[in-house]
């Protein structure tokens, strides 16, 4: 497992566009939003979280769009299948590496921008925690979408996996409200962490079966 993790990290580190691109787009969206519309600081403080949440959703999809397609197209998945017989470990490694390289920095960017838009310094780490957990859930869900549509373009994956992502967004919204109103953060963050753990344990099994079907 550690071997897969280090190999995936090695690959993603060398694909600058794959991890830096989504992060730059997120920064661009978060900078451009307040500049592009005429909005008072009071309103901006209220609505900025929505922008962070929506950009997190979009960028999570973008970051996982080609998570398996490269290995599928160049024949690496066949080689992995011959060695491992299933794709559970490689799927888990890929998702965790993507969360580490893209998801966590996204959460950091989101919490920094929320601090810049009115959240206190003490509350910013809470935003970081719930955004980090959300990226773990979203990356799992969109990785499933990516596996589903590995040889059919990514739109089918979006359509198929978006309904699964919406509960995660609802949870994230609840989490943000607990930070805004200063109560219930622990309960919601534990609930989110629990959901993230279950999703992270189960989704690679489903993705593994999906990839195996595509390989045939």
């Amino acid at each position: 497992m550690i071997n897969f993790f280090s190999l995936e990290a090695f690959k993603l580190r060398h694909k600058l566009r794959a991890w830096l691109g989504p992060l730059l787009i997120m920064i661009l969206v978060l900078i451009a939003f307040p500049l592009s519309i005429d909005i008072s600081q009071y309103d901006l403080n209220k609505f900025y979280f929505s922008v962070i949440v929506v950009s997190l959703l979009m960028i999570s999809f973008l970051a996982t769009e080609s998570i398996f397609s490269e290995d599928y197209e160049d024949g690496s998945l066949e080689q992995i299948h011959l060695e491992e017989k299933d794709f559970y470990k490689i799927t888990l490694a890929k998702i965790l590496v993507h969360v580490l390289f893209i998801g966590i920095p996204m959460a950091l960017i989101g919490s920094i921008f929320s601090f810049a838009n009115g959240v206190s310094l003490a509350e910013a780490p809470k935003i970081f925690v719930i955004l980090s957990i959300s990226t773990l859930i979203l990356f799992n869900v969109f990785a499933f979408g990516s596996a589903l549509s590995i040889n059919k373009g990514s739109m089918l994956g979006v359509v198929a996996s978006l309904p699964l992502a919406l509960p995660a967004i609802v949870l994230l919204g609840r989490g943000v409200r607990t930070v805004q109103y200063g109560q219930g953060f622990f309960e919601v963050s534990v609930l989110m962490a629990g959901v993230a753990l279950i999703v992270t344990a189960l989704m690679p099994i489903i993705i593994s079966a999906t990839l195996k079907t595509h390989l045939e």
Partner: protein
Amino acid sequence: MQLVTADNLGYSINEKRLFHNLTFSLNSGSGLHIKGGNGSGKSTLLRIILGLTSPSKGGVEYCKPNLQVSYLGHKNAIKHYLTPMQNLELMFRSSALQNAMKWMNTLGLNKVQDELTANLSFGQQKKLALIRIFASQSDLIVLDEPFVGLDNASRDLLNEFLQKKLASDTSLILTSHIEPNILCSELVLSGETDD
């Protein structure tokens, strides 16, 4: 010693039968050259033998537990955004990596080891992919059109390597339109028929 047996294999796609009732076995140290025209099901048969594709009928059995298989198909399984050296680091661990680097020198890829693989010629990329076969320890080597894109010297090297492997009890299954210079039995697929 028998290594692989295929019993009554059949494969159909879109109501067309690519092949049916194929029964054969492969012993350690023996080779099988699968022949046939384009679309006759050679690559599909290889994938069935490897367990990548399920047959419509029959089955393949490996007679040795934990059989080590090296495979090179149509796809090279190399990363174009990495250098040849980095690709080898992805494919092999420590001791095997040393062996792989020796093969890289033998194949003349050491001159381009720090260039991006995307910038290499088709033949050079094929050679890089073949190092996966050259530097691996395996009981069975499965190759799909391994000679395509190779210059004469590399073809001779591959033929010589495969001969040595057969002599050292490794088995070989390959498809090739270019006649290999090795002693192996032949299996000819005639192509699709109506179901």
